[in-house]
C-alpha cells in the first residue's frame, strides 16, 4: 500500500519529464511550420487525457483487443475534437465540412509538413506516450532511463533549433523544470525501493542537501539566463573573430613585404576580351521527362530526413549505451562500489515497437504475396494450439513450463506431478513435437486422435478420494 501511494508522485514526475521535452518538440514544430493554429499547450492536453483514459480502461475486465479498440476510438475522438477546436473554430455547430478539409490537408504531401499533419502525428505520439505512462510500473531504472532519454531528446531539439536559427521562448524554464522533475523522480524512486539515503537515519540532512541542490540549480540557471544575453554572447564570440582578423592581416602584410623584395616581372599581355557571354540555350524537351514531380521530391526529402533522424538517434543511443557500459565495467572493477542495473523501460519500449513494426511489415508482405496457409498447415497450427492449451492447463495447475524446457523435459515434469494424465500428456506432446519440428504436418487422423486425447483430458471425471489432489486440481482447471 505504501509503495502504491508513492507511485502517484513518481508518475507525476515522470510525466513532467516527458512533458518538458514534448513541449520543446512541439514548440520547434510550431516554429518550423509557421505556427498558425498549431498550439503546443493545447495539443499537450491530450497527454493527461490519454493517461487518465488508459487508467480507466485498465480497470475494466475487457480483453486486450477491446481495450486497444477503445483506446484507438478515444484517440480519434480526442484528436478530432481538438482539431475542430484548433483549426475550424466555427461558431455554427452545424458546420460539417471541416472533416473533409482536415482530410485533404492531411493527404497534401506537397505542403508537408503542414500544421494539420504535424498535429495528427504529434497527437498520436502524445496519446501513445500517455498510454505508455499509464502502463509503466515506475521504479528506479525506469526513471533513470526516462531522464537519459529526455536529456538526449532535449539536446537534439536544442541542436536542431540552433541549426535552424529559431528563437524558442521559455527554454531555460523548460530545462530547469526538466532537471527538477528528474532529480526529484530519481530521489523518490531510489528512496521508494528502500535502499536510498532518503530513508536512512540521516534523512532530514540529506533531504535538506537535495532541496538545497535543486534550489541552487534553479538559481544558477536563472542567473545564467539573466546574465548571458545574446549581446554578451556576440561580444564574447567577436573576440576570437577579431583575433583571427588581426592574425590574417598581419600575415598579409608580411607576405606583401616579402613580395615587394622580389624583382618585378614584365607585364603580360592579356588576350583581347571576347564577345558577350553565351546565353545558355533551353534544355531539350527530354530533360523534362527526367525531372521528378514536386510531390515525389517532397516524399524523397521526407524519407531522407527520416533516415537521417533515425541515424542520429541510433548514434546517440549507441554512444550513451557505450558510456553506461564503460561506467558499469569501471564500477565492477572498483572494490566496494555498488551499481544498479539500468534495464530501461525505453529500451524495452523501443524493442517492442520495432518488433511490432517488423511483425506488421511481415504480415503486410505475406498479404501481398498471397501466402495463404494450406489446409495441412492449418492442421499443424491446430496441433500447436492444443499444445498451447495444455501449457495453459499445466500453468494454471501450478506447473508452468520454464522457457528453457523442451517439450520432452516438460512432459517428464507433468508426468511426475500428475501421474494419472501420463498417457494423454505423452500423446499430445508426441503429436505436437512431430507437428512443430518436422517438415510434415500431422495427418488428419493424427490430429483427430490428438483432439480426442485433449477432450479426454479436459473432461476427465474427478472421483473424490480416488485420485491424487494434484490430478483433481488439474482436471478441475481443465474443465
Amino acid at each position, binding site marked *: 500500500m505504501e509503495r502504491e501511494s508513492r507511485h502517484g508522485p513518481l508518475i507525476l514526475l515522470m510525466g513532467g519529464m516527458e512533458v518538458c521535452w514534448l513541449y520543446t518538440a512541439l514548440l520547434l514544430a510550431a516554429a518550423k511550420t509557421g505556427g498558425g493554429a498549431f498550439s503546443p499547450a493545447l495539443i499537450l492536453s491530450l497527454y493527461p487525457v490519454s493517461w487518465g483514459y488508459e487508467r480507466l480502461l485498465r480497470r475494466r475486465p475487457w480483453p486486450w483487443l477491446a481495450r486497444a479498440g477503445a483506446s484507438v476510438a478515444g484517440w480519434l475522438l480526442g484528436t478530432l475534437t481538438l482539431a475542430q477546436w484548433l483549426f475550424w473554430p466555427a461558431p455554427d455547430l452545424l458546420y460539417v465540412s471541416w472533416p473533409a478539409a482536415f482530410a485533404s490537408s492531411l493527404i497534401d504531401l506537397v505542403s508537408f509538413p503542414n500544421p494539420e499533419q504535424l498535429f495528427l502525428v504529434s497527437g498520436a505520439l502524445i496519446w501513445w506516450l500517455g498510454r505508455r505512462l499509464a502502463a509503466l510500473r515506475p521504479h528506479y531504472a525506469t526513471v533513470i532511463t526516462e531522464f537519459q532519454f529526455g536529456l538526449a531528446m532535449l539536446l537534439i531539439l536544442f541542436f536542431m533549433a540552433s541549426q535552424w536559427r529559431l528563437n524558442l521562448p521559455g527554454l531555460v524554464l523548460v530545462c530547469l523544470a526538466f532537471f527538477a522533475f528528474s532529480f526529484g523522480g530519481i530521489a523518490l524512486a531510489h528512496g521508494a525501493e528502500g535502499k536510498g539515503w532518503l530513508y536512512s537515519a540521516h534523512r532530514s540532512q540529506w533531504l535538506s542537501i537535495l532541496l538545497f541542490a535543486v534550489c541552487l540549480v534553479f538559481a544558477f540557471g536563472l542567473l545564467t539566463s539573466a546574465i548571458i544575453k545574446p549581446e554578451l554572447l556576440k561580444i564574447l564570440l567577436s573576440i576570437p573573430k577579431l583575433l583571427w582578423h588581426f592574425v590574417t592581416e598581419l600575415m598579409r602584410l608580411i607576405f606583401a613585404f616579402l613580395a615587394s623584395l622580389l624583382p618585378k616581372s614584365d607585364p603580360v599581355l592579356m588576350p583581347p576580351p571576347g564577345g558577350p557571354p553565351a546565353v545558355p540555350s533551353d534544355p531539350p524537351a527530354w530533360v523534362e521527362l527526367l525531372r521528378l514531380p514536386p510531390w515525389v521530391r517532397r516524399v524523397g526529402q521526407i524519407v531522407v530526413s527520416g533516415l537521417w533522424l533515425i541515424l542520429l538517434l541510433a548514434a546517440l543511443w549507441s554512444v550513451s549505451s557505450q558510456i553506461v557500459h564503460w561506467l558499469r565495467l569501471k564500477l565492477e572493477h572498483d572494490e566496494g562500489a555498488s551499481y544498479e542495473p539500468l534495464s530501461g523501460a525505453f529500451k524495452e519500449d523501443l524493442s517492442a515497437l520495432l518488433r511490432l513494426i517488423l511483425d506488421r511489415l511481415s504480415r503486410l508482405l505475406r498479404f501481398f504475396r498471397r501466402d495463404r496457409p494450406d489446409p495441412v498447415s492449418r492442421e499443424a497450427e491446430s496441433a500447436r494450439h492444443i499444445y498451447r492449451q495444455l501449457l495453459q492447463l499445466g500453468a494454471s495447475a501450478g506447473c508452468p513450463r520454464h*522457457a528453457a524446457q523442451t517439450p520432452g523435459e516438460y512432459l517428464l515434469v507433468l508426468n511426475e506431478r500428475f501421474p494419472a494424465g501420463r498417457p494423454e500428456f505423452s500423446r499430445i506432446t508426441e503429436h505436437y513435437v512431430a507437428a512443430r519440428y518436422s517438415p510434415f504436418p500431422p495427418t488428419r487422423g493424427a490430429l483427430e486422435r490428438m483432439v480426442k486425447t485433449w477432450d479426454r483430458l479436459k473432461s476427465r471425471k474427478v472421483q473424490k478420494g480416488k485420485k491424487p489432489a494434484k490430478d483433481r486440481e488439474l482436471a478441475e482447471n481443465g474443465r
Partner: protein
Amino acid sequence: MNETTAAAGADLERLRTTAERFRSNVGKVIVGKEAPIDLIFVALLCEGHVLIEDVPGVGKTLLAKAAARSLNCTFRRIQCTPDLLPSDVVGVQFFNQKNSEFEFRPGPILANIVLVDEINRAMPRTQSALLECMQEQQVTVDLTSITLPRPFMLIATQNPIELEGTFPLPEAQLDRFLLKAKLGYPSPGEESAVLSRFQHANPLEELQSIVDASELLELQKIFRQVFVDGSVRDYIVKVNAATRENPDIKLGTSTRAALGLQAASQAMAGIRGRGYVLPDDVKALAPHVLSHRIIVKTEARLRGRTEDGIIEEILATVPVPVD
C-alpha cells in the same frame, strides 16, 4: 511427397538399425556406456573427431579400439610420447639408395580410424601436425599434399588429472574435435559384469566388424537428410551466442561449433530413427560439442565454475522454441 517420406523412412530405419548393431557390438566389450558409444557413432556419421577424456583405467583406449574394430576399415594407433615427431605421425620422404629416388613412407595417420592415445603427452609441434589432417583431411609432406582415406576419424584420449610431462591442447586443436566424451566410473553392477566378461579372455580380440567403409559413407549421406527446423537452427545459434556473452567465459565457441552441433544433432536424431531434429537432441549434445571449446576465466575457475557447469547453465536459460 509420400514416396519421399517412405524413402527417407527406409533410410532412417537403416541408420537406426546400424547404430543399434554398432552399440551392441561395442557393448560386448564396454559395459553400460551406451551414451559414449552413441557419441562415437554420431562422430563417425559426421566424420568428426572425438576426444575421450577421463581418469586412467576406465576404458578410454578400449572404447576407441572396440569402435575401430567394429568398422571394417584400416585402423592405426599412435601412442603419444614427448619424443614423438611430426614425421612419425604424417610420414616421411626418405632416399631409397636402391633406385636412387626419394620415396614417401606414410605415417600412421593415413588410415580410416586413427587412435591417438594420450594426445596431450605429445609436444605442441607434433600436436600441430594433426591440425591439417583433422580439418582438411589431408597431410602435406615436402610440398606434396596427400588426401587421407575416407571415412577418416581420429579418436584421441587424454587424462585430465595428470599434468606432469603433458602439453595442454591448443584451442585451435580442441575446436577441431567434434565431440568430447567422458566415460566415468562404472556402477558396481557394471564393474562386476566387466570382471566377469574379462575373466577368461579379452572380448576385444573376438570382436567382429559390422560396418564397412562404403556403407559408412552412404550413412553419412543419409543423416544429412534429417530435417532441421528454422526455429531449432535459431536455438543452436542462440546457445552458441550465449557462450560468447557469458561473463564467466573468456573465449566462446566458434561457428564451427555451431555447425558441429547441428550436424551432431542431425546424426543423433537419425540414429534414433527420427527424420527431424528436436531441441532435446541439441540439449543432449551441446555439453559434448561445446564444453571443450570454451575457455573459462581464471577468476571463474577459482570460484569453482567448470566448462560443463557453465554449458548446463546456458542450456537452462536459453529459451527453447515452443509455441
